[in-house]
């Protein structure tokens, strides 16, 4: 990737003190011209998939070809994910902050000519406020961003994650320098305790308390102690941790080093799932650069404190995100959870005291150390301080990554930041916490999004996936989906999980066919409780949550399946029929051509008919029809 600073060559700098770091930062900043135009191109996984790398290449060519005066040649910077994934590829022209969306390589020439040379905006690439139809010119005016509070994500979208000089210029490693030069390890733990930070991986265990318990365990058992980053994010629809690791890897690393300093650890591990190759690459680059600058490895900043870390790649098992399974995986054994009546802080990796925290938790740590626990505790609400990053997906207009203070109402995230459901209808439910969480129905849309309120509603914060559902999503089908996912991902060790999830899914399969009795619903609830109570690890014990919450909030929909043999959402294939509305059908024949079962008949310009006997209920006709003539009943 393109690097901005040419003066810095990695390897020639080894920082000896906090002053050295500041000197370097000043030097980098002084070499920069704040007025120089800079083209920022999102290179998050979402934008890359939409071809943002080709956009970047096109900019290089176009700028060279335009022959812009050497003094004002714009810089090109590729950054991590800006969060507004549904609008990618995103291009921002700084310093003004002009925001272009859905940019393709063929738009680039016009941007260079109109914006960079003539100083005008290319209006057709601007974001349009969906409510007012007004054109919005800059990033900070877009409702999606305006309503967020980006704390953990503050650097992402601004810095080039592969260039440590960019991180240093943005204030990276200041917290580490502060801790090493002015704080004792004990004080670092105290700051984290006072901040009220709770683990972002799902359960919300107080981070400071965890670190304190580890210190106590070390007193009893001595060192070594290990610090581990859990980057095995695997919930369907979740991509918060990936974005942080890709977009600001140094923040995670700095948090890890601070934890190591606080606990006196010499070795750390970053357990990252292999499905995140870009995150792994950026972390590797960040670690190599940090080592070269004396920020990682032997005698960090000449303070006498040494710490190094390595990346372990998860090989695709969801259950390895569970702490004890993660440890057995790092130890080189199959990723099976261990019975966990002795806590990981006492007996974790290699049987030693271990602190395992989530990526986002670690990314919060430098902010707390730098700006103080008082500042942090002022964010969010009293028992859930700080902000939380959510990935907003499903039936919502603004799919992407958002960061809000803890405690904001669910509705604010889904309707205001997320822009609501595409067809303007109210959402039906929001699934938080992935397969371990639950469905919050529309009528509880005022639920504050914090650890305790979500748990009280029967769901959980989880890692931060928010799947928005509308009236075309069936709760029985959602339950089946998550159970199928967990059946495959269970380690298979304990019986309630290995046998129970399949049996629960089979009961739901029956419901989706319109079979089943009220007794089955009772059995399902009772079996779900047995799995919750009986399973060995959190994967199993939280697996019934989607079913239990939908039974609690959408019992009528279950009843409709078994009593009326109907799927109100029109999803369960055995309970629906596709037909064609003769009023709306124009007889264009395109559905008949696409139908894989060839069960649609009708003459040109005359209404078509679907043979329900032969119909596979694949829905292709419905997707094909431009006149909304295909209906489900």
């Amino acid at each position, binding site marked *: 990737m393109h690097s901005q600073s040419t003066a810095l060559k990695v390897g020639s700098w080894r920082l000896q003190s906090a002053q050295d770091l500041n000197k370097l930062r000043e030097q980098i900043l002084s070499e920069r011209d704040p007025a120089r135009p800079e083209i920022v191109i999102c290179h998050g996984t979402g934008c890359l998939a939409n071809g943002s790398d080709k956009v970047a290449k096109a900019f290089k060519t176009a700028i060279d070809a335009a022959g812009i005066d050497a003094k004002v040649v714009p810089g090109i910077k590729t950054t991590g994910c800006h969060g507004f994934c549904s609008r990618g590829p995103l291009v921002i022209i700084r310093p003004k902050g002009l925001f272009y969306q859905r940019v393709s390589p063929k738009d680039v020439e016009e941007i260079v000519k109109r914006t960079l040379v003539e100083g005008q905006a290319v209006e057709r690439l601007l974001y349009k406020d969906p409510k007012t139809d007004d054109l919005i010119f800059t990033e900070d005016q877009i409702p999606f961003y305006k309503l967020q509070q980006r704390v953990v994500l503050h650097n992402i979208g601004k810095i080039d994650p592969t260039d440590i000089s960019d991180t240093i210029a943005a204030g990276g490693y200041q917290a580490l320098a502060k801790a090493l030069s002015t704080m004792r390890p004990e004080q670092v733990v105290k700051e984290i305790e006072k901040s009220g930070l709770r683990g972002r991986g799902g359960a919300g265990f107080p981070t400071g308390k965890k670190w304190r318990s580890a210190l106590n365990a070390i007193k009893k058992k001595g060192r070594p102690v290990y610090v581990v980053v859990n980057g095995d994010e695997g919930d369907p629809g979740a991509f918060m941790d990936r974005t942080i690791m890709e977009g600001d890897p140094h923040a995670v690393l700095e948090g890890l080093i601070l934890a190591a300093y606080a606990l006196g650890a010499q070795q750390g591990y970053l357990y990252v799932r292999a499905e995140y190759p870009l995150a792994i690459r950026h972390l590797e680059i960040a670690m190599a650069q940090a080592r070269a600058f004396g920020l990682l490895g032997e005698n960090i900043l000449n303070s006498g404190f040494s710490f190094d870390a390595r990346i372990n790649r998860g090989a695709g098992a969801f259950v390895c995100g569970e702490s004890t399974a993660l440890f057995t995986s790092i130890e080189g054994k199959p990723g099976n959870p261990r*019975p966990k009546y*002795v806590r990981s802080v006492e007996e974790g990796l290699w049987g030693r005291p271990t602190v395992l925290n989530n990526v986002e938790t670690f990314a919060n740590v430098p902010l707390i150390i730098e700006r103080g626990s008082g500042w942090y505790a002022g964010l969010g609400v009293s028992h859930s301080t700080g902000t939380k990053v959510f990935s907003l997906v499903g039936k919502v207009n603004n799919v992407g990554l958002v960061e809000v203070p803890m405690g904001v109402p669910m509705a604010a995230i889904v309707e205001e930041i997320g822009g609501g459901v595409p067809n303007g209808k109210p959402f039906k439910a929001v699934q938080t916490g992935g397969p371990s969480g639950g469905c919050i129905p529309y009528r509880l849309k005022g639920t504050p999004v914090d650890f305790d309120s979500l748990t009280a509603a029967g769901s959980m914060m989880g890692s931060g996936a928010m799947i928005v559902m509308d009236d075309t999503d069936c709760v029985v089908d959602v339950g089946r989906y998550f159970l199928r996912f967990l059946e*495959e991902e269970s380690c298979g*060790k304990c*019986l309630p999980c290995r*046998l129970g999830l399949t049996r629960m899914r089979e009961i739901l399969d029956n419901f989706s066919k319109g079979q089943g009795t009220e007794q089955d619903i009772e059995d399902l609830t009772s079996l779900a409780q047995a799995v919750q109570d*009986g399973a060995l690890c959190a994967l199993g014990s939280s697996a019934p949550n989607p079913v239990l919450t939908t039974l609690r909030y959408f019992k009528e929909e279950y009843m409709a399946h078994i009593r009326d043999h109907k799927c109100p959402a029109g999803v369960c294939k055995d309970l629906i029929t596709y037909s064609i509305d003769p009023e709306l059908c124009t007889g264009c024949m395109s559905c008949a051509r696409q139908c894989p079962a060839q069960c649609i008949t009708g003459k040109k310009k005359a209404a078509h008919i679907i043979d329900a006997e032969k119909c596979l209920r694949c829905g292709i006709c419905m997707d094909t029809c431009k006149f909304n003539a295909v209906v489900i009943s």
Partner: protein
Amino acid sequence: MITFKINDEEVQARPGWTVLETAREYGIEIPTLCFHPAVSSSGACRLCMVELREGSWSKLVASCIYPVAEGLQVYTDTERVRNVRRWVLEMLLAACPASPEIVQLAAKYNVIRSRFASKDPDQTCFVCGLCARVCEEVVGLSAIATVDRGIHKRVGAPFARPTDICVACGSCITICPTGAMQKIFDSVRGEPATALTQLA
């Protein structure tokens, strides 16, 4: 000695004991399948779940691995405990219909029929892993392992490659709670090419 209560009766245990060991010492009945004193406990079958209570707080734990502690209040036959037991046994009946041991154990806890259909009428193995543990911990060979994960988990040769290190000592057959190992035994050490397909 550590003093705590099981079913409101005071009991004493040595440090390092589990709740199950203490209960057995006092003749308090807790069903188990994947537990054997000769090997380490894995807490897999969940039949030995007991309820811990403290005021209004309560939690189920596997007694075969839960270490004793001063002042614990353990209950071995509460509604929640019975619910887990009932469902595990119903599912086991359907999973291993050919095992008389499981039919007997289930009957002892009043589980006579299962609401679930059986998928394999000849199955007796429920993958408790005792065979693998005894081979590793007592025999010292690790000729048997559990293979794959989730619903596909099964007993087989390590890395799914039938092994020639087995010395045919028979420990796995002796320890198997359902007699399933008798059938699996030859396929774990059998002809390399066909062993796994026989298993599945």
